């Protein structure tokens, strides 16, 4: 179907240097990660603060308060339920929350009117920080396996 579009008058100023469909996926993924995070966040808090799944279940004896210890986390990652599921949950949580948070900051920047080259610089910087956070977080998780008793 041949469509003839006639645009009158001055060219649409909104397309001036901003025309891009790159804006759909950040918007869409912000929602997807947000909804998934509601679930993952709930699991994360429940496990660490209420479910006591992190506590060392093999040792009896007194414990110093309800503080989570290194051993508790290492135990959960290695012994509780389907262990590789914990890895998926924890790494997903990390990746999604970093994306969601830094994409949010990026949104604030774009709302402030940052466009063109400056916008690409800001996006690049935030992506870099996010990736550094992801690598660091995974290393932190691996440390529980590395130093496990």
């Amino acid at each position: 179907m041949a469509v003839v579009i006639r645009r009158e008058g001055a060219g649409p100023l909104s397309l001036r240097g901003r025309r891009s469909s790159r804006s759909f996926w950040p918007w869409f993924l912000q929602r997807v990660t947000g909804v998934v995070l509601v679930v993952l966040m709930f699991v994360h808090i429940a496990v660490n603060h209420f479910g006591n799944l992190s506590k060392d279940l093999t040792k009896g004896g007194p414990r110093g308060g309800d503080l989570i210890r290194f051993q508790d986390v290492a135990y959960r990652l290695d012994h509780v339920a389907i262990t590789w599921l914990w890895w998926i949950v924890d790494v997903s949580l990390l990746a999604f929350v970093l994306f969601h948070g830094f994409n949010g900051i990026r949104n604030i920047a774009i709302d402030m009117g940052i466009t063109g080259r400056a916008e690409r610089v800001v996006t690049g910087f935030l992506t870099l920080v996010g990736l550094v956070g992801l690598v660091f977080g995974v290393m932190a998780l691996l440390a529980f396996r590395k130093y496990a008793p």
Partner: protein
Amino acid sequence: MASIARRRPPSVPGTHFRPGAIETGTVAFIFHRITGVFLTIYLMTHLVVIGQSVRSKEAFNAALHFVGQPVFVFLDAGLAGIVTYHALNGLRIVGFDLGWGIRRQKLLFWIAVVLAVAVFLASLIAAHELL
């Protein structure tokens, strides 16, 4: 009318958020942004704390011991309320994006606020019990 063409005339000053006419939707948006920025900053501190595991078992336990102090536990209660508001308002927004609840937007906002306050108070009580 050369003077108008050459000089860019001013807009009304202080226009971003009209001081005398803030509506429910505006407040929801402002809170969402503020809680979002706060949570991103918190996230970075959280990574630093938990990331102590990279150094050693003792470093991790020491870090958790440090943030186990009463002041931090109470701050955690505030965090719980903030996360709840951001999550529930976020779901409110996703609802709009799916076409739900647009005409009930104010009610949904208040539900988010009430539940966030409830979670905050419950967490305060839990913190008090713990300490």
